[in-house]
């Protein structure tokens, strides 16, 4: 079973306690009533869906119930890092060994 680190509980917890909650860092346009249909489509429906690193919202649904952000590799299904909702987007870099890490975290 996949273990996911909840930044609010401060520990790794079984994936059964979590729910995926869509792409992270999608900013709601302000004022939303003045944007065009095309801009609304881009904001509301269009997602990156990359092969590789993706920024996602997750919710510790059956735990502390908090939403948080995660960086996950869609190829390996490995979580690179998780961090609290509202925190700035974490920068990720791939080392020479091909492993993705939080920028500045080493090797």
């Amino acid at each position: 079973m996949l273990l996911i680190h909840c930044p609010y509980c401060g520990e790794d917890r079984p994936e059964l306690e979590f729910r995926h909650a869509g792409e992270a860092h999608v900013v709601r346009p302000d004022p939303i009533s003045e944007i065009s249909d095309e801009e609304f489509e881009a904001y509301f429906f269009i997602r990156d869906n990359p092969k590789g690193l993706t920024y996602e919202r997750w919710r510790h649904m059956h735990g502390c119930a908090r939403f948080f952000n995660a960086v996950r590799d869609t190829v390996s299904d490995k979580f690179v890092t998780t961090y609290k909702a509202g925190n700035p987007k974490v920068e990720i870099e791939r080392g020479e060994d091909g492993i993705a890490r939080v920028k500045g975290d080493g090797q």
Partner: protein
Amino acid sequence: MAEAVATRTSPLDGLIAGSVGVAIAQAAPAHRISLRVGADGIPALNKALGLDLPTEPKKSVTAKSGRMALWLGPDEWLVIDEKGDPMADVAGVDAFFSVVDVSHRNTAIKVAGRGARATLEAGCPQDVTDDAFPIGACSRTVMGKIEIVLMRTDANAYRIECWRSFAEYAFEFLSDAAHDCMA
């Protein structure tokens, strides 16, 4: 005209289960509140409740009166009391908070004995070994197909809170798991 009498019933009335290693029984009826409050309001609520709400993950406190407060999230607690009504105690508190009486939403099952942990582990994916889940630890988690709130009340004893409508499922699940908990 006969006077109408309302009798409180539990979905698990009279049921007992277990095996050589574990006893499974419903817990006594209790008052319960779901409490949401930010850091600013905690001192006033501590005073009203007569305990210090735990502010670290998975921690619980039990007051001398038997009243328990379980950390569920960064601003969320479950308060359980088999005697006094915590809803009444917080009613007049002058702070910004939210409280809901969930006394009848939940039912609790007690699982105790040398095989208690193994019984639980049949359906709970969380790490409940001593280091990760010592006596007094508590957590919202899952068991089988349902959400529960788990509390370790003693070395070999757990309290499992689940929604009333899931009580029979939870009880059956634990009864089944008890068969081979000493294997």
